[in-house]
């Protein structure tokens, strides 16, 4: 009865406030839309279409949720959904996409960008070409004339051409005064006026694409604002979109586009870098001193390629390659042990202290409580580095302390098992305040009657803890423990700053240390395979880590649910 009247009252009040709320709401949505559409346009403009699509989805969702009259529930969920789409779903999808590509050193550009870069390269002649003075003139119609003079270049003024055009006979040459001196160039050449230094800067964007053909058949390029250089070779590459091939003037050969780069056939083996032939993913086939399917970078490692979809090759590599697989399993086991160990240790210490702080007879509890928060309040960056110093084998305070008690030095950071212990120790220090806080809260919410009842029934302190306190505590803290597990599973910062993954493990072909987590192992692997950085392979590992975590979390939540069901009864 009472609640029905309340509901009616509430509804009336809501209706009254709707007018004002609508204005505020629409204004907020309008603001969001304005910014959102601006972002959408700029994302679409610079080619990040996936982000643009995501933005469009977010805009549609927000407008629907806040402007449609029948979406009360969605309004509360929308901000979370939008943030989740941007910061969880999108990174996962993008990482999955990268894991299907050959994204690595030498293949980071798009195909168009790679072709653009290649087309700027010139045929290599081994000579640098002479340089000399460049003077720029301009007429009223904004046409440019270049006057060049150098050691073997006689003073010559002419109309430049675009560097994309074929060199031809010099067009429209102009008479240069006989008494010409580069230090005091003529003010004017046939209606073209001398440009000052600032004037040349203003047309720099046009100059950088210009070439000038000399009467003697040579060409010069504009090299700086005041100098030119005689070209010793023409453009090296010319792309033909119709056949998707690239003509390489250096080799005089036409190469066809393939995965990630252009591939040339009939190349003499002596021109091909041996490292490219023996590489595990090599496409090169040689017989009788002639090689086919030679990628451009095998001819010249400074010729770039592009990123391309390669299907599940990275996953297949991961599964098949012994040099990655064996350390991977080693790291996975330690990773799980580390995450579980960290959660158990921090929870045990935190809960122990919280229970201690609950005892009435404990004095100065407020003081201790504040003290316990300190490790949590100091930034991890700082305390991890301090710990690193404290744990130093020869110079650290921890070993000094051990020595004072007559104990021998412990190689905290350079022994395999010692380093694992050190990592857990430091992580316990960093993590127990959090567990202390949540256990304190959860403990106070446990009804004291239950504990009293257990006491009356004759349960000892240990039994009371095990059968009453802990299960009730776990109902509320289990999700947080799962969160802590997931966090520690990827605790890159701690490992990176404390041990760097080390000490190194012998007997593996990839750099791996005894405290490496999957994430730090991946970080190392991404930077140290073959030709530099391998983002595709690293992303494949990240996806595997994600799956491991997702499955673990799903299973754990199911377990927690069971827990709740049991104790709800």
């Amino acid at each position, binding site marked *: 009865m009472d609640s029905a009247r309340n509901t009616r009252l509430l509804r009336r009040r809501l209706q009254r406030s709707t*007018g004002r709320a*609508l*204005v505020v709401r*629409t*204004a907020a*949505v*309008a*603001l969001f*839309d304005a910014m959102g*559409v*601006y972002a959408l346009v700029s994302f679409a403009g*610079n080619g990040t279409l996936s982000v643009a699509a995501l933005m469009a989805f977010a805009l549609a969702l927000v407008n629907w949720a806040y*402007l449609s009259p029948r979406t009360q529930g969605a309004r509360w969920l929308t901000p979370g959904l939008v943030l989740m789409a941007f910061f969880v779903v999108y990174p996962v999808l993008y990482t999955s996409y990268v894991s299907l590509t050959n994204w690595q*050193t*030498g293949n*980071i*550009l798009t195909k168009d960008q790679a072709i653009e870069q290649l087309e700027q390269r010139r045929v*290599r002649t081994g000579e*640098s070409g*002479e*340089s000399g003075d460049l003077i720029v003139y301009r007429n009223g119609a904004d046409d440019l004339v270049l006057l060049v003079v150098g050691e073997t270049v006689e003073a010559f003024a002419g109309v430049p051409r675009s560097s994309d055009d074929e060199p031809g006979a010099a067009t429209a040459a102009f008479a240069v005064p006989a008494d010409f001196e580069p230090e005091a160039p003529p*003010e004017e050449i046939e209606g073209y006026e*001398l440009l*000052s*230094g*600032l*004037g040349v*800067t*203003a047309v720099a*964007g046009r100059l*950088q694409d210009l070439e000038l053909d000399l009467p003697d058949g040579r060409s010069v390029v504009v*090299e*700086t*604002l005041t100098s030119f*250089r005689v070209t010793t070779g023409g453009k090296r590459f010319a792309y033909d979109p119709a056949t998707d091939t690239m003509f390489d003037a250096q080799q005089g050969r036409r190469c066809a586009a393939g995965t990630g780069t252009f591939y040339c056939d009939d190349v003499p083996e002596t021109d091909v870098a*041996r*490292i490219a032939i023996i*590489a*595990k993913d090599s496409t090169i086939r040689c017989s009788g001193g002639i090689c086919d399917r030679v990628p451009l970078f095998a001819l*010249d*490692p*400074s010729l*770039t390629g592009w990123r391309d979809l390669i299907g599940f090759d990275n996953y297949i590599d991961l599964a098949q390659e012994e*040099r990655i697989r064996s350390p991977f399993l080693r790291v996975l086991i330690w990773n799980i042990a580390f995450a579980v160990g960290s959660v158990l240790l921090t929870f045990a210490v935190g809960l122990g202290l919280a229970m201690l702080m609950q005892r009435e007879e404990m004095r100065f509890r407020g003081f201790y409580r504040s003290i316990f928060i300190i490790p949590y309040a100091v930034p991890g960056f700082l305390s991890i580095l301090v710990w690193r*110093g404290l744990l*130093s084998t020869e*110079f650290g305070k921890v070993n000094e302390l051990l020595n004072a008690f007559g104990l021998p030095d412990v190689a905290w*950071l*350079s022994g395999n098992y010692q380093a694992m212990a050190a990592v857990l120790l430091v992580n316990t220090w960093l993590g127990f305040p959090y567990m202390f806080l949540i256990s304190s809260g959860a403990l106070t919410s446990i009804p004291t009657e239950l504990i009293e009842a257990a006491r009356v029934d004759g349960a000892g302190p240990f039994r009371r803890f095990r059968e009453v306190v802990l299960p009730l505590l776990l109902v509320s803290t289990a999700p947080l423990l799962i969160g802590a597990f997931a966090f520690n599973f990827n605790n890159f910062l701690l490992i990176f700053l404390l041990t*760097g993954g*080390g000490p*190194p493990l012998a007997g593996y*072909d*990839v*750099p791996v240390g005894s405290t490496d987590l999957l994430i730090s192992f991946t970080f*190392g692997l991404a930077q*140290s395979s*073959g*030709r*530099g950085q391998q983002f595709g392979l690293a992303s494949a590992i990240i996806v595997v880590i994600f799956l491991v975590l997702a499955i673990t979390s799903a299973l754990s939540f199911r377990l927690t649910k069971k827990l709740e069901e049991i104790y709800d009864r």
Partner: protein
Amino acid sequence: MRRRTGIWFATLIVLALVAAACGDDADNEDATDAATADTQADSGDTPAEQDEAPAEDDPPAAEEEPPAEEDDPPAAEEPIASITIWADDSRVGPLEAIAPAFTEETGVEVNVELVDFGGIRDQVSQAAPAGEGPDIFVGAHDWTGELAANGVVAPINLGDKADHFVQVALDGFNFAGEVFAVPYATEAVAMYRNSDLVPETPATWDDLRAACDAVEVANCVTVPGGEDAADAYHNYPFVSARGGGIFAFDASSGFDASQVVLDSDDTIAGVEILEAQVADGYVSSTNYGNAKDLFLTGQAAFFITGPWELGSMRDQSDINWAVSVIAQMGDAPVQPFVGAQGFFLNAFSENSLIAQSFLLDFIATDETMQALFDADGRPPAWLPVVEALSSNPDVQVFGASIANGIPMPNIPEMGAVWGPLGDNLLQVRNGESTAADAMTAAAEAVRAAVGG
């Protein structure tokens, strides 16, 4: 009814705002274009500005001055063009100090942005293709291979100016036959000595051991790359002590990643020297921080590191110290890794001509190179400045060390070397592995990564 009006109202606001947002952008662009056009139009013949420039401007132009300059003076104050440079904290200062001279001469505004040195390399590869990178950036020569393979740096033709650079610096930035940066500094490790403890420079490693035996000192030589931190760079003088190395080197084609020589007899012989020093207690297991602290506090006789520590030696230490090339271990002088720093040109720069002018006409000059040396302290890569510093003993010592050394390989495959080499040398440093085992393992790991 009322609600519906509200929605229409809201939609109108949205559209208005959207229009405002987009329209604003377009307006701005137009305005900028117009401004640029204006500036172009009158700067072309505004000798009033030229007069400020110290250059060889011709006075006659000032007389036949068209009235354009009164048109809009504000436009003239805006820069005609601008370039962006990424530099780390030690180079931002000198670049900002010299930039106004370039601005005065050319009207180009120079924006120097501070980027952490270690981050420049990765950020350039991301930002440059997206059109957000700098026009010029400071970098180390061993990035050259990766950046060039990524297509984000443009080759630079130094022409005759190449004769003015230290050869090893040019070699460092040379990848596949082209130079990809304008070098300005070089560095290599040498040997700092506590001259209170050891007054005489030991010429050979035997002299060094004898000197350490003669005094009471806890640590004879501290070298980074022990304890808990792998550091292949600082341990490399031992790797090359007997002629060993990482990859086979050919003067014409550079390093050949298909020929790993880490487990050659020469390399192992060099690392065995290191192993013996560790076993005999002459080389302590120290990471960088402890190696430095021990030396600065007088607890070590020798400290092997580079010229970047000269400043802290002068400022933070009470001991008397001197610096010399590393004591000889074999028939030839010790061959450390040489690093070079230089200015790269972003291949995606839209101001490539101006950026190139900045590098060739402005950086590659005596004044700028001197200013960079004054601020940075590393041995210059510009020969005229090196010659002018003939009376600077520190530069001479590090210069000698550089002359003995070889540039760190700049091929992208080096990424697969640093980890295994550093880790295995660390095990030798900590007495956990023999030279032969460690180098064999390192060689296998590198072969597996680059070729297998």
